[in-house]
C-alpha cells in the first residue's frame, strides 16, 4: 500500500460565483452594460427626488420650449420638463419588464426542466404548445391578449410572462437534455432521490448559466416589447412619463420641429436595451466558457 500516494491537489482554477463575478468584471461589454443599466435603475428608484422639476407638473405657458439651460431637454406640450420626465420615465418599464421576465423565467424554467427531464409524451405535447405560442411574434400575441382582456399593466405583465416562458423553456430544455445524459443524474436516481430534488438541486444549478443569460436577454426583449406596446397604445397607460408612451404621444410633433419631445426618450430606450444586452453578451461569453 505504500505505493498509493496521497494525491496532491492539482492546480485547478478557483471556481464559483465569486470567480464568475471576477471574470465578469474583466468583460468590457458587461461593465459598460452594467453601468448603463445601473444608471437607469438608479433613475427609476431615486429619479423622482433628484430631478430638477416635477415631471408631472404642467406649465401651460411654457409648453414646447426647446432645450435650454433651464430645461435641458426642453418641455413638452403641457410645459412639463422633458429631462425630468425622461429620468423618471425609467420607473414603470423597469418595474413591469423585470417582473414579467422573472415570471417567465420561473415558468419557463419549470416547464423546460420538466420537458427535458421527462421527455416522451410530456415533452411532445409541451413542445407543440410551445411551438404554437412561438408561431406568433410577441407583439401580435400581446395585441390579441390585450384586445381580449383589456389593456392594463397586469395584462401586459402576464402576456409577456406567458409568451416568453416558452422561449426560456426551450433554452432550459436543451440545456437539461444534455445534462440528463450525464451520469450524475443516473447517480442521483441510484440513490433514489425524488424527482424534484433531481430537477432543482441536481440539474438546475448546472443549467443556471444559460438560464441567467437567457433571462438577461429576455429582459432586454421584455423592455423592447413593453416599450413597443406602450408606443402602440396597449402597454403602459397615461399619465406615466414612460418613454414609449411619451414617444407615442409626441411623435406627431417631430414634423413641426419639436424633436426634443421624442428624441431623448428614444435615446433612453435605446441605451437601456443596449445596456442590458451588453450585460447579457458579457455574461454569455464569460459564463459559457
Amino acid at each position, binding site marked *: 500500500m505504500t*505505493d*498509493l500516494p496521497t*494525491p496532491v491537489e492539482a492546480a485547478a482554477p*478557483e*471556481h464559483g460565483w465569486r470567480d464568475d463575478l471576477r471574470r465578469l468584471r474583466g468583460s468590457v461589454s458587461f461593465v459598460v452594460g452594467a453601468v448603463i443599466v445601473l444608471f437607469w435603475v438608479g433613475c427609476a428608484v431615486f429619479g423622482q427626488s433628484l430631478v430638477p422639476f416635477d415631471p408631472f407638473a404642467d406649465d401651460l405657458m411654457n409648453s414646447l420650449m426647446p432645450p435650454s439651460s433651464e430645461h435641458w431637454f426642453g418641455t413638452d406640450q403641457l410645459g412639463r420638463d422633458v429631462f425630468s420626465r425622461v429620468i423618471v420615465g425609467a420607473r414603470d418599464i423597469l418595474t413591469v419588464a423585470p417582473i414579467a421576465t422573472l415570471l417567465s423565467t420561473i415558468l419557463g424554467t419549470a416547464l423546460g426542466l420538466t420537458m427535458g427531464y421527462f421527455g416522451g409524451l410530456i415533452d411532445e405535447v409541451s413542445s407543440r404548445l410551445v411551438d404554437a405560442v412561438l408561431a406568433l411574434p410577441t407583439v401580435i400575441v400581446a395585441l390579441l391578449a390585450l384586445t381580449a382582456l383589456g389593456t392594463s399593466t397586469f395584462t401586459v405583465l402576464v402576456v409577456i410572462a406567458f409568451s416568453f416562458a416558452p422561449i426560456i423553456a426551450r433554452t432550459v430544455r436543451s440545456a437539461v437534455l444534455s445534462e440528463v445524459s450525464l451520469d*450524475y443524474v*443516473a447517480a442521483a436516481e441510484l440513490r433514489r432521490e425524488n424527482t424534484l430534488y433531481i430537477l432543482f438541486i*441536481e440539474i438546475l*444549478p448546472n443549467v443556471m448559466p444559460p438560464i441567467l443569460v437567457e433571462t438577461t436577454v429576455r429582459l432586454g426583449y421584455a423592455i423592447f416589447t413593453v416599450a413597443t406596446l406602450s408606443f402602440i397604445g396597449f402597454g403602459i397607460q397615461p399619465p406615466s412619463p414612460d418613454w414609449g408612451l411619451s414617444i407615442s404621444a409626441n411623435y406627431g410633433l417631430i414634423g413641426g420641429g419639436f424633436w426634443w419631445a421624442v428624441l431623448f426618450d428614444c435615446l433612453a430606450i435605446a441605451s437601456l436595451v443596449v445596456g442590458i444586452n451588453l450585460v447579457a453578451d458579457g455574461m454569455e461569453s464569460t459564463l459559457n466558457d
Partner: protein
Amino acid sequence: MTDALSFDNLGVAYRVKGKMRQVLDGVSLSIAKGEAYGLVGESGCGKSTTAFAALRYLPRNGSVNRGRILIDGQDIGLLSPTDLRHLRQFKVSMIYQDPGRALNPSLPIGRQVAEVFELAGVPRAEWPARTHDILAKVQISDPALVMQRYPHQLSGGMQQRVAIAMAIASNPTLLVLDEPTTGLDATVEAEVLDLIQHLRHELSTAILFISHNLAVIARMCDRVGVLYAGRLVEEARTEEIFRNPRHPYTAGLLRCLPQAGRSKDKAMLATIPGFLPGPGTKITGCVFAPRCALADQTCRTVEPELLRTDDRASKCHYPDRINELDHISNAAPVAAAVRNSKTILQVDGLAKSFGSGTQRQRVLRDVGLELRAGETLGLVGESGSGKTTLARCILGLLQPDQGSSLRFAGEALAGTTALRSRHQVKSIQIVFQNPDSALNRAHTVYRMLSRTIGHLVGLRGAAREARIKSLASAVRLTERHLSAVPSQLSGGLKQRVAIARAFASDPQVLICDEPTSALDVSVQAAILNLLAELQATKQVSYILISHDLGVVRYLSDRIAVMYLGQMLEIGPAEAVFSGPHHPYTAALLSSVPTLDGASTERVKLTGALPSTANLPKGCVFHTRCPRKIPGLCDHDAPPQVKLADGHVLMCHLAPEELPAADRNIPPTITLP
C-alpha cells in the same frame, strides 16, 4: 542525406490571458527519410503541439519562440505563405484523431480526395481515376461507391482510411499521425494500423507517430521519443526503450501498464505519484524530480542535459540507476477477496430494446450471467455490443424488456430503482466511466458523499460524519478535497470521489464501467490498485466493463465476451484468454498491440458491425466471422459449447476446432 523532419531546440508557447505559457521546451529530434518515429507521453505533455508545429499550424495563440523546424532541410519558419502551402501540398501530410470530424460533412468523399490532385495540378479529367486508385490503395473495397458517399455515411474505420488516402495522395515525404486510432475499436484500430504499416513500406514515407498508447507505438515505430512536460526526456530504438528504459518516467509508464501476466492477485501495479507540472510552471532542476523516486538534491536543482550515447538519449542525471526503482516500489498484492461460489447476482434471458417497428433496436438479447460474491466479472466487446446497456439494466436505470429475469441474493429485482427496495438499490452501485459526467459539478465532494450516505444508508449526524471521513480516507482523499467541487480536482481525484461515492452505501455488487478509460496510464494504475484493494477489504463483486483487455485481465476473475447484445463467451479469465475460445474473442485478443511489437498473425474481421435494428440471422457474428460455416452459421443459432470450469461459448464449431491463443501468454515484456 537530409532528414525528413528535424526539430532543433524547439520551443513553443501559448499566450493565455496575456501570459506566455511554454508548452514545448528545447525539443530536439530528427526523423530520417523513411523512418517511423514514435512520440509518447501522457496527456498534456505537448504531443499534439509538436505535431502541429511540424506543419506550422499552431492555434492562434501559439507561437514558436525558440529553435527551428526543418523539413527536408528547409526551415519552415522562414517560408512564405505560398511556400508553406506548397509544403503542405507536396511534402507533409497529417492524419489525426476522430476522422469523422476531419472530413467535411457537406462534400462527397470523392470531391474531398480529388482536391489533393487539384492542388497537385493534376488535370481535372484525371481526378476521378486518381481518386479511385488512391482509395483502392487504402483498401477500400468499392472506391466508386465510396466516392459518392458523404462522410457521415461511412464507418469510423472507413473515414480514417479516406483521411489516410488524402494524406498519402500527394506522396509526401513526411506523414504526421496524431493519435490516428484513438477512439476506434480495437479491431478497427488494428486494421488501420495494419494499413499504415503496409503503406509505409510501400511509400517509404517518414512518419511522426504520436500516441499515448505505448503498445501502438511499439508496434509501429523504429525509434521512440518520450515527452514529459514539453521536454524530450528519452529517445531510443523501439525495442531498446521498452526493454531497457533509461529514464525513470519511461520506466514508470511501462510499469504502470496492466500488461499480460499481471493480475491483481500477483502484484499491484506501479504508479507514478504526483502530477504533471502545469504548462508555464517555473521549474528548477529536473522536471520529473518531484515525481521521481530516485530524485536527490542534484535532480531538484540542476536540470539534466539530454545525453546522447550510442543511438539513444536520456535526460536524466542517473540513467543507470533505473533498475533500482523495482526495489523501491514493487508492492505485494493485497490479500485477495474471499471468493466463494455463492451467486450474488443472477441475470437470465435479459433483453432490452429501444424504439418500435422497423426502427426497433434490439440492444440486448437473451443475456445471462452469474456473478459470485467477491469476484470480478470482466465484460468485453466492441462499442455497440451492449455492455453499458446491460450495466444500466442491472442497476435499474433502464427497464429491461418483459421476460427478463434479474435476481439479487436470490430475490427478484424489479426493473427500475423506484420499485426496488432500498437495500437492493444500495447494494448494486456503479462507478461511471467519466467522472466529469458522473459528479455533479455544482456540488461539493462532501455533499455528494453525505447525500448518498444519508439517503441510502440512513446515517445522520456524527455517524454520517465519521462515515464520510472513513470513506474519504479509504480512497485517499483529504479533508481539503471534501470541500472542493469537481472542477477543482484532477481526473484521478475525481474518479476517487466517484469510487468513494459508489462505496458509500456498502454495495455488494459494483459495476465499473470503463473506470479508467478517461485517465492517463499512471493514474489508471492507481485507480486499478484502489479498486483491487477495496474489493479485498470490502468483499465486493465487480462487473468490470472495459475495452482495454489489459485492464480486464488485470482485475478479472472471469470474463464475459459480448457481441451485438449477446453473450458469446463466458468463463474463467485465463481460460478465455488462452483459449480455446470463440472466434470473436480470438479476433479481439489478436487485435491488441503488445509492447514487444511481436507481430503475430492477426485474426482479421471483415465488414462493419451490423445494426441492432437489423440483426443477422443465425449466429450474430457470422457476417464477420473468419471461421464461418456457410449454410449453417448464417441460418441456425449456434449451440452452447461447454468447456471446463464453467467456460461456455456459443459457436457452431466443435470445441477442438475452436481457436486458441498461439502466443505466449506469460509476460510479453520482461521487466529488468
